[in-house]
């Protein structure tokens, strides 16, 4: 089995007359964790949605390589893209609030390939997130914010993905939980050998686990850091994030 990666080249996207992305190119190589950094409204989520087929780019191309096979993602339906092995933990988590924790996890395994691995993956989820095991019969809507984020991550892992996109895992969480969630993502990534693209506002937390990152400003890639040092020392980031 060879690797799983994503290559986005020169995509443009707009909501009606409002331009959201302009000529964005980005690459996530096999086994990497890439951070997509930017404050609210700069196009992070739109880029994620383009990759997942939720928003259709007006120009440009998006290719994914899954276990060595190359797929053109533009024009495919979201469910077909997910079925390739690309999972998104969406903004706002989007759990099924009136289903139990366990039912939410089982829905994650809807994909045919994932059904075969259900027992393993569920045991893995409950091991990684013991709170979810305790609350397996509780409705997802009654969980705390941190638990909901864990469930959203767990549900995405039940899909048995090769590539995991995570949109703002830290949003709405207390600082200590942000740290734990980021650590957990790193741990899961290693255990599952995932390729990860993570959109995040919390720069300092994101670059703890990222191999490299992109800074997106007003729908354009403003800076590409080939290492975390480069990101740390970048003027733009110092100005926007660190207030230096």
């Amino acid at each position, binding site marked *: 089995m060879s690797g799983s990666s994503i290559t986005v080249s020169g995509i443009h996207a707009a909501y009606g007359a409002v331009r959201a992305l302009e000529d964005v190119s980005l690459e996530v190589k096999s086994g990497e964790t890439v951070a997509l950094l930017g404050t609210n409204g700069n196009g992070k989520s739109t880029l994620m949605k383009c990759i*997942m087929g*939720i928003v259709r780019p007006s120009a440009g191309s998006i290719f994914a390589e899954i276990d060595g096979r190359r797929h053109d993602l533009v024009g495919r*339906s*979201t*469910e077909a893209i*997910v*079925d390739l092995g690309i*999972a*998104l933990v*969406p903004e706002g988590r*989007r*759990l*099924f*609030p*009136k*289903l139990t924790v366990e*039912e939410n996890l*089982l*829905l*994650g*395994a*809807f*994909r045919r390939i994932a*059904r075969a691995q259900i027992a393993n993956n569920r045991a893995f989820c409950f091991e990684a997130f013991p709170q979810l095991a305790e609350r397996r019969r509780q*409705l997802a809507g009654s969980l705390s914010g941190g638990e909901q984020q864990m469930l959203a991550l767990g*549900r995405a892992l039940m*899909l048995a993905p090769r590539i995991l996109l995570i949109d703002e895992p830290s949003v709405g969480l207390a600082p200590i939980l942000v740290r734990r969630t980021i650590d957990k993502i790193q741990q899961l990534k290693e255990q599952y050998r995932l390729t990860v693209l993570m959109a995040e506002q919390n720069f300092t937390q994101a670059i703890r686990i990222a191999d490299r990152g992109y800074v997106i400003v007003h729908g354009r890639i403003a800076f590409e850091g080939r290492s975390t040092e480069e990101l740390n020392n970048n003027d733009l980031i110092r100005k926007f994030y660190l207030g230096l």
Partner: protein
Amino acid sequence: MDFPVELLANAIVAGLLLGGFYAAVTAGISIAFGILDIVNIAHPAFIILGSYIAYIVNANFGIDPILVSLIMLPAFYVLGGAVYQVYYASFERRGQEALRGLAFFFGLLFITEVGLVLVFGVDYRYVEAIYIGPTLRFSFIDLPLRMLIPCLVSLLMMLCLQLYLTRTFIGRAIMAVSQDQLALRLMAADPVRIKRIAFGISIATAAIAGAFLIVIQPVEPSVGREYIGRVFAICVLGGMGSLPGTVLAAILLGIVESITATFYGPSWAPAVSFGFLLLTLAFRPAGILGR
């Protein structure tokens, strides 16, 4: 004055049996309205269609009406899927399902009804089956087979539906589809396909409920209208989208109606059942087993 224990016991048993039948009539609405958010007020028309098909086959070939309905399940499933596809393409996809969708199902209700009137006239039709005459007696309790058989088959059907919804991948997706369609797509499931399957199942239950109806009482094309209010009441009373809740609510309503009809006269029954619904919702707004 002696308290009429025998009368009360028989009223309760009759109510239980009636409730079993109501559960079958409501099952389709619980799926379409309770789970999918599709206000299918044409459901009783599909039930009457089921009654007439049971009648035709029974009258011509002498096949048992409930058996006919089981044979007709695939056809009703396909019909339901087709109706959903039209509803989706014409209304839901454009976000116009609220009012126009309602009008669509109203239209469907009348077209089916008028179609049946044109073909069969307005005479009452009935079927023949070995269990329509006899009654089981346990001391002073009467169990008319005409009510008992539909009740038992209905409970079996509800059990199968509940197992399907909670134990299978498609079933769980059906429970999730109205909560968040995008999230469902992110699980690699196509929400339109899931809804089409669910609506197909919802209409398939009408075939069985239709056979029950014509076993229990003679049927003419507009008799389904009597059930529209009651069916939605049971669905809401049980808790939106909960099939066990639907069974409980159907049985409760059946018993309340039966007791009222026995002691105060049948014309009070609807008033008492809707009063019961309002009272329950005042204390449990989500219904008996609503999540």
